[in-house]
């Protein structure tokens, strides 16, 4: 009888302890899961839109729960500890644990029966739940506040507000890059008054936006963008005026000329402008501008006078030609850049929408001879040291002819040739005094060396000193 009672009593105690452990385990798992869910807010940016972020704690619970359950699983030592707790609490001097082991044996002797009896007497009235009440652990205290905090933060979209998706983390698509390129082209065209470039930028942006909305493939986008570029290329070629002086001008000189034309326009619009002053006087004032003077010189011959309206129409004509040429070149540049962007497999840093024309000239004057300077170009171009598919050798140089060296768009080293003076056959002059002076220097150096006998030094010195006084200057 004692053994049966004790077995039941021990089972109650052990069962109660196991239940408390399970409850603590659940609270720990709950706290851990919701705590980790709060810490995982930065990762919500990778979740698709929808209710997925609300399920994060449940997913964590599914992972954390079994791990905790395994680590805190009930072992035999836990049973021993649970029974020993009875001994400690009731001061039974290990009677309970001895009785618990005796109940597991098949037969018990006299002393064992006494142990069982005494343990039964002491434990009969014991109620495990009142003797070992639940204790509040940290996890039980934290569980509800953590849940409330998580819920509140998520309800207020705190994760989205604080950890906004940074688009720069993901590589931009081709459509995105095209759109950015088109916007930059438009911006530049508006600032410089380039109508064709503006139209091209608008059409390219339209193509890019359509591709982004329709989630079109890169191939479709390349085809559409290429079509736009070809259309503008054809139009641009058709508009090229072979007789225009602007074809042989550098971009820098064209820009300077355009700036001077704007200044001249402003000047003529001032009160007391062209209508009131003589045309010749205006011509003189305009000739002060270096670029403009070159183009106005034919109209400034003696005996040839121009009226104010003629000057205005001349300036307008010049402006039209310059703007048209700048526009044409901008379209060509944009087209080549576009071709390069479409050929690239993916985004490369430094390229993409870094389309910008740098000040200070990106084209050099006509080539032939002179000093070669290899410097890092400031225009986007090919990678340094690499020849692209469109590499062309330098054009044939003709003396006196304006020409244009076309380069490839993209980052990379640029090769430039500087020329001092006109590279044409002609006379060159050298001053006699300079020659004589050099002769004298050389003579002095030789005289001071040991190679000339001392007896002849004076004779030779006198001879060279007499050279400058006797010989006339030669051209």
């Amino acid at each position, binding site marked *: 009888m004692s053994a049966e009672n004790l077995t039941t009593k021990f089972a109650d105690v052990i069962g109660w302890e196991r239940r408390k452990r399970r409850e603590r385990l659940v609270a720990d798992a709950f706290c851990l899961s919701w705590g980790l869910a709060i810490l995982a807010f930065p990762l919500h940016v990778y979740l698709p839109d929808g209710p997925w972020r609300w399920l994060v704690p449940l997913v964590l619970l599914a992972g954390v729960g079994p791990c905790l359950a395994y680590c805190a699983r009930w072992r035999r*030592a836990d049973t*021993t*500890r649970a029974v*020993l707790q009875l001994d400690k609490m009731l001061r039974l*001097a*290990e*009677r309970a*644990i*001895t009785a618990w*082991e*005796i109940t597991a044996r098949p037969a018990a*002797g*006299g*002393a*064992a*029966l*006494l*142990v069982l*009896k*005494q343990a039964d007497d002491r434990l009969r009235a014991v109620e495990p739940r009142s003797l070992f009440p639940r204790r509040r652990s940290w996890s039980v205290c934290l569980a509800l506040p953590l849940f409330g905090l998580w819920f509140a933060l998520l309800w207020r979209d705190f994760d989205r507000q604080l950890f906004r998706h940074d688009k720069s983390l993901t590589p931009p698509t081709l459509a995105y890059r095209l759109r950015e390129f088109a916007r930059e082209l438009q911006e530049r065209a508006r600032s410089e008054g380039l109508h064709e470039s503006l139209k091209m930028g608008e059409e390219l942006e339209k193509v890019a936006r359509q591709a982004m909305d329709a989630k079109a493939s890169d191939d479709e986008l390349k085809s559409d963008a290429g079509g736009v570029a070809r259309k503008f290329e054809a139009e641009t070629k058709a508009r090229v005026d072979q007789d225009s002086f602007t074809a042989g001008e550098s971009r820098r000189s064209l820009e300077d000329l355009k700036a001077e034309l704007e200044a001249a326009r402003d000047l003529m619009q001032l009160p007391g402008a062209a209508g009131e002053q003589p045309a010749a006087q205006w011509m003189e004032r305009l000739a002060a501008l270096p670029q403009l003077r070159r183009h106005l010189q034919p109209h400034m011959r003696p005996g040839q006078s121009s009226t104010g309206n003629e000057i205005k129409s001349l300036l307008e004509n010049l402006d039209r030609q310059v703007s048209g040429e700048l526009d044409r070149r901008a379209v060509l540049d944009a087209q080549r850049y576009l071709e390069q962007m479409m050929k690239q497999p993916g985004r490369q840093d430094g390229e993409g929408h870094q389309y910008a024309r740098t000040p200070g000239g990106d084209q050099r004057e006509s080539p032939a001879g002179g000093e070669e300077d290899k410097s890092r170009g400031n225009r986007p171009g090919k990678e340094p040291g690499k020849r692209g598919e469109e590499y062309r050798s330098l054009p044939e140089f003709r003396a006196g002819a304006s020409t244009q060296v076309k380069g490839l768009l993209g980052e990379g080293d640029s090769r430039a040739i500087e020329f001092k003076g006109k590279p044409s056959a002609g006379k060159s002059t050298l001053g006699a005094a300079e020659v004589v002076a050099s002769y004298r220097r050389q003579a002095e150096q030789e005289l001071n060396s040991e190679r000339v006998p001392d007896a002849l030094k004076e004779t030779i010195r006198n001879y060279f000193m007499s050279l400058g006084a006797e010989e006339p200057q030669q051209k």
Partner: protein
Amino acid sequence: MDPVTEIEQRIDSARSSFEELRAEMARVIVGHEELIEHVFIALVCGGHCLLEGVPGLGKTLMVRSLGEVLNLSFSRIQFTPDLMPADITGTNVLTDDPSGRKVFDFQRGPVFAHIVLADEINRATPKTQSALLEAMQEQSVTVGGRIHRLESPFMVLATQNPIEMEGTYPLPEAQVDRFFFKLVLRFPSHEELARIADLTTAAAVAPPREILDAPGVLRLRQWVREVPLAEAVKDYAVRLVMSTHPQQKEGNVAGGLAQRYVLYGSSPRGLQSLILAAKARALLAGRPNVSFEDIRAALLPSLRHRLILNLEADAEGVNAEKILGEIVAQVPEVI
């Protein structure tokens, strides 16, 4: 009779006998309550004790009184360097029988008593020591090829003087290990000393009355072995003994002093002594089972003489008691 009732009576009888023994001994011996308890525990466990204390602390009086209370024969052997083994065990003496023939008659030595006090055992030669140790182990002596059984119960209380070690023959560790307990006698307190003076310098005190006898002690020995021992308590005792071994990793949770100063730990005899003593203590306290407290109470007397310390311990004054104290503090009851 109901076995439970029988056991209850048995336990009650043991407890009351012990209480009476303590009370009776307290009339004659001042102080040394713990010593008396341990000696009695060793007796009911069938072991022998090694007593260490300065002269004049009442060792002989205590042992003699114990013999009187338990109605056990008592003999005292004063060990000297010239003591021979035959002086302990006895010898054959040539005598005349009634018919006038010369015959050898075995004259029993002082070892033939229930309780033998071997005073200053370390003063005798190893050969003489071994004669006593053989008697302790075998409970018999062999003289002239004949085996003579000793009395039962038989217990030897050997003493050592800790302050006169020069010219002595210290017991080897293997022989010291055969003693169940090593008990240290401390000097009496002020009150105890005053009471000693009253008892010994006034009128003679009536001898103690008999409480138990030899069969009673033998019954107690049997009851001790029947006291149940829980696995958890046994495991605790094992871990305590394992912790005295610095080389052992399994079950060894103690560190510090044991790792640093112990050369060799306790033998398995130490565990036997520990558990038997704990059982005896539980029985004499009227409990039917062994508790953790019983184990801890028996630890020091059971193991203090079984630890072999290194020279560093000797140099730094670290003794076995200090090491065992740390072990008790570090080893948990349940892991």
